[in-house]
Structure formats: structure tokens, C-alpha cells
């Protein structure tokens, strides 16, 4: 190197760096002020869940709670009023089984689309992917009536069937792109050694797809967990309704529950998705990077 280290003016660089951080202090204040808009509603939720109904109505909504004890009552009462136990179990089942099956079926389809050569591959891919281009509103009426006719409206099976179907097209896109970039040498070698197609898929492709499969599973699980529309239309009975749908109890015109209860319920309902996100942040970010969802 022509440039010797002694020629570099480290002091000047350091001074410049320090100056640039110092200059930024006013902008930290601005940033803090802006992020208040995001903090206040969360703060409001957090103080409200520690208040009794009387306490909530008597004080300013942003005031600090008098104690922490009302949260136990709020949680129990919210849980019982909305029958959240059933909602939790249902949503967990729809989310885990539905998203799990969907991603598995998507991996199978992606394998067929990328590892076996046949005519009009693109047509079959587009056929599956077409499931993502329609707005959800267009499915509602036909599904509602078909479900009634077949008799699977308001059943666990019916809900699971739809959630699985609606979560397939997107992972197919992701996994197909991923498999196209994955080297074919391993599966060619396995085929040479006489492995069946299913064996190649099961023991070679699947283990290599764990990353994108986890990322898409998490996205689809969260989608199912958060869904309100289809749960309202296809499964509005108490035994089958999802957790988000059970929150609606607090929202009708017949409710007497205070905001403290409603907010507690909303927080409880969101907890699993939040915990999942915090635990598996890396996978979510990876999923967002590939998808922008």
C-alpha cells in the first residue's frame, strides 16, 4: 500500500466523527417527540389494564393506575366474558395446522414445479399463484353458500380447509424461487442412487428448505391468527370462532364491559403473535425481506 498508516490523520477523523454525532443531538429530541405518537397509545393500553372500571371512568385515561391488583380481575373477567379459552384453542389449531399444512403442500408443489421437468410448468404455477391476486371480498358470498350447502359452515373442518387453501399460493411463490436457486446436484445424485421422487423430496429438499419454510409459516400463522373477516363469515358460532372474532363480544351494542376489560382482552389476544414475533424476529424479518408483507 502506498499510503502509510502514519499519514492518516486519526485525530481529524475522530474529531469529525464526534462532531457528526454531536450535531445529531437535537434530532434525537425530535425523534423522541415523534415516537411519542407511537408510545402514547401503548402507554394508554398498559395503564388501562391495571384499572378497575370505576377507576377508569373517574380519572383521566392517561393517569397512572392506583395499584396493580385489578389486572387479575380484568384478565379473568375478560377471559370469561369472551370465552377466550375456546378462541385461543381454535385460533391456535387453525394457525398451526392450517399454516403448517399450507406450507407443506406449497413445498410439495414447489418441488414438482422446479425439480420435475414437464410441459407448461408456468401455466400450473400461475394457476396456483392466481390465488393471491383476488381481493378477499370476492370469495365471501360463494364460500358462505357452498359451506352452507355442504354443511361445513361453522365447523372446525370448514375453517381449517379455507385457511389452508388461502395460505398456499404465497409460500409456493417463495419456495419456488428458493428451490430454483438451490443446487440440483444433490437430488440428481440421490436419483442416480435410485431414490424415489418422494424420497428425494422428503430427505433432500425438505431439510434444505427449513429456513424459507419457517419464515413463510410464521407469516401465514400470524395472518390466520389475526384474521377477522373469514372467521366472521364462515365460523361465527361460539365453539368454532377464532380469538379475534371472540373480541367482538365487547364491541356490540349490548356490551357493558368497560374499556379496561376490552383493552385487557385485546392485549391477551395479541400476546401469542407478539411473543412469537419477539422470539423469532430474525425469521420474520427474513420473511418480510423476501415478501414485503
Amino acid at each position, binding site marked *: 500500500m502506498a499510503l502509510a498508516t502514519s499519514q492518516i490523520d486519526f485525530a481529524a477523523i475522530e474529531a469529525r466523527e464526534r462532531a457528526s454525532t454531536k450535531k445529531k443531538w437535537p434530532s434525537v429530541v425530535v425523534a423522541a417527540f415523534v415516537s411519542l405518537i407511537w408510545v402514547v397509545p401503548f402507554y394508554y393500553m398498559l395503564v388501562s389494564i391495571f384499572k378497575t372500571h370505576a377507576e377508569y371512568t373517574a380519572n383521566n385515561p392517561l393517569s397512572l393506575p392506583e395499584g396493580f391488583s385489578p389486572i387479575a380481575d380484568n384478565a379473568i373477567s375478560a377471559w370469561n366474558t369472551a370465552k377466550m379459552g375456546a378462541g385461543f384453542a381454535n385460533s391456535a389449531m387453525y394457525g398451526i395446522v392450517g399454516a403448517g399444512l399450507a406450507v407443506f403442500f406449497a413445498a410439495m408443489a414447489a418441488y414438482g414445479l422446479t425439480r420435475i421437468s414437464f410441459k407448461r410448468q408456468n401455466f400450473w404455477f400461475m394457476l396456483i399463484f392466481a390465488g393471491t*391476486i383476488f381481493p378477499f371480498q370476492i370469495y365471501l358470498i360463494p364460500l358462505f353458500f357452498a359451506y352452507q350447502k355442504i354443511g361445513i359452515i361453522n365447523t372446525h373442518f370448514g375453517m381449517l380447509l379455507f385457511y389452508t387453501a388461502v395460505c398456499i399460493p404465497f409460500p409456493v411463490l417463495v419456495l419456488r424461487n428458493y428451490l430454483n436457486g438451490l443446487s440440483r446436484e444433490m437430488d440428481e445424485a440421490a436419483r442416480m442412487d435410485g431414490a424415489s421422487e418422494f424420497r428425494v423430496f422428503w430427505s433432500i429438499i425438505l431439510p434444505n428448505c427449513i429456513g424459507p419454510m419457517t419464515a413463510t409459516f410464521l407469516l401465514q400463522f400470524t395472518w390466520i391468527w389475526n384474521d377477522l373477516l373469514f372467521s366472521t363469515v364462515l365460523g361465527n358460532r361460539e365453539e368454532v370462532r377464532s380469538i379475534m372474532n371472540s373480541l367482538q363480544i365487547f364491541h356490540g351494542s349490548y356490551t357493558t364491559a368497560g374499556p379496561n376489560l376490552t383493552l385487557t382482552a385485546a392485549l391477551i389476544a395479541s400476546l401469542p403473535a407478539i411473543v412469537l414475533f419477539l422470539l423469532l424476529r430474525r425469521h420474520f424479518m427474513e420473511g418480510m425481506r423476501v415478501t414485503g408483507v
Partner: protein
Amino acid sequence: MTDRPDRETDLQLMERIGWHQIKAVEDRAMKRNFWKAFAFMSPAIVLVCGLLLMPVVYNIYFSFTKWKKFAGLDEFAGFSNYAKLPGNPYFDTAFYNTAIWVAASVVFPLAIGFGLAVFLRGVAFGNVFKNIIFLPRILAPTAVAVIWFHVYAPHGVLNSLLALVAGQPVDIGWLYQDNTVTPAIIATFVWQSVGLVMVLVLLGLSAIPKDPLEAARVDGATNSQTFWHIVMPLLMPTLVVVTILSVLSGFTTFDLLWVMGVAYPGQRTLSLAVFMYFESFQKGSWAFGSAIAVIIGIVVFSVTWIQTVMQNRVDKMTR
């Protein structure tokens, strides 16, 4: 090669080595392969066709019938359901509100998210602020709607903060009045979606190679020149994706409007998605509801088509 007769055409050569047989064998293999591949694709194809594509076909068919309540499914109505749409006061308002929704859900999250991404990149503790702003994204939309329903309540957070500023009690029913309900719900939508836009823009920014930036700096480009001529073009693909995502979610949002608009007397006019739900599942005008769904579908379709065109153009530009 030595035994190749003179002046043999390629066609003759192919005849001689029996290309018909080769082609037949290959075709057979392709056909066999297709069934193999189909076995792998069949669960996906059956589910997608049965539960997503078939309903679309049926929905279009329903929109041309006179189906209302329990009758009229077998009566053909032509385009009359569509002809009824403009002029229906609810539809007109819903359409107008949806247009506002879509415009606002593109402009605000994009402008604010983009601004915050650029701004927070250089700020100390930037990551803390980014995480705070991203926070609403991990809440369910229904939960966000519940929180903001109470923030906007007459005795809620917003009014109490305004009272602090005004020095006297404020009790605006943000979600009960015609002129505040849509802006209020849009603000909530923006609040929730800015974080994602910001993260996507940050990802786009971090993917920009350092070399052209360095080169521009060495050549004496000003900051704004670098931004408009180097950063922006390289960021275009991200911005296109973000815009389209915002348009589509603005068009089909249901949860926020359904939960937050529950106390608003004209809830059905909040957007086309809500209007469609009202007409069909509450009034039983199934054919009419199907027609609204088709309209939503057409708009979403054209937006997706514009996206493809724009993306191709951007790809050509950056290549």
C-alpha cells in the same frame, strides 16, 4: 463422422438416427413426468381451485342474477346490478371514501415512513425509535382498532390531550361524526403501517452499493444531487412495491373499519369492502353484493397490472 454420406441434409441425418423414436420416448417421459409432478402439485391445485378460484367464478356468475334473500338465483339480471351501483347514495359515498382511503394509505405511510427511514438512519438511538415505530405492526389489526376506538372515545385519550392544550374540556365524538370518522380511521391505519414502510425503505437503502455514492462524493456532488440522482433511482423498486402494497391493503381493509366504525351510523359507507359486507350479509342482497365484490376485484386487478408495468419499467431503468 467418417461414415456420414456426402450431402446428407440435417433432416436426413435426423431421419437416419431415428429422431421420431427419440422424440416419442422424450414425449412419453414428459407425460410421465407431468403425472409425477402433478402428484406433488395436486393438494395445492385442488385446494386453490376449489376454495379460491371456483368462488371467484361463482361470484361473477352471482353478480349477473337477481338473487336476493332466498329467491332469484336462477333469474338472469344482465348488468342491472352494476347499473344500479352509481347513483346508490351509499355506494357513491363508499366509493368516494374508498378513493380517499387508497390515496391516503399510499401518500401518508410512504411519505412518513420514507422520511423517518432517512431521518432515523443518522440519529443516535435510531434503533430504539425504529423498534418503537415498528411496534404496532406486531399487534393484530383488531387489537389496534380496539385501542384506537378508545383513544378516540368522547372521554378518551385524544380529547383529554386536546383539553390539555385548549385549557377547557373537549368532547369530540371522533368516530361518530361524518367529517371526522374517515380521517380518524385513516390516521390509525397510517400509525400502524408506517413501521413496515420504514423497515422496507431501510432495507432498500442498506442494499444500495457504496461505490456510486463514493464516486459521486469524490466528483463533488451535493447531498441533494446524490439523493435525487443516485439514491432515489436505486430505491425505486422498493418504492413501487411499497406503493402497490399500500394501495391493495387500503382497498381491502376490513378489520379497522369494522371495529372502529361500529358506533358510526353510516358505517356501511366507510369503504367498498364494508359496504359489500353490509349489502350481502346483513341485507341479503346477494347479487348486488357480488357485483360490489367484482368492482373491488376489477380495481385490485388494474392496480396489480399497473404494478407489473411499472416494475418492468423500473427493472429496465436500473439494469
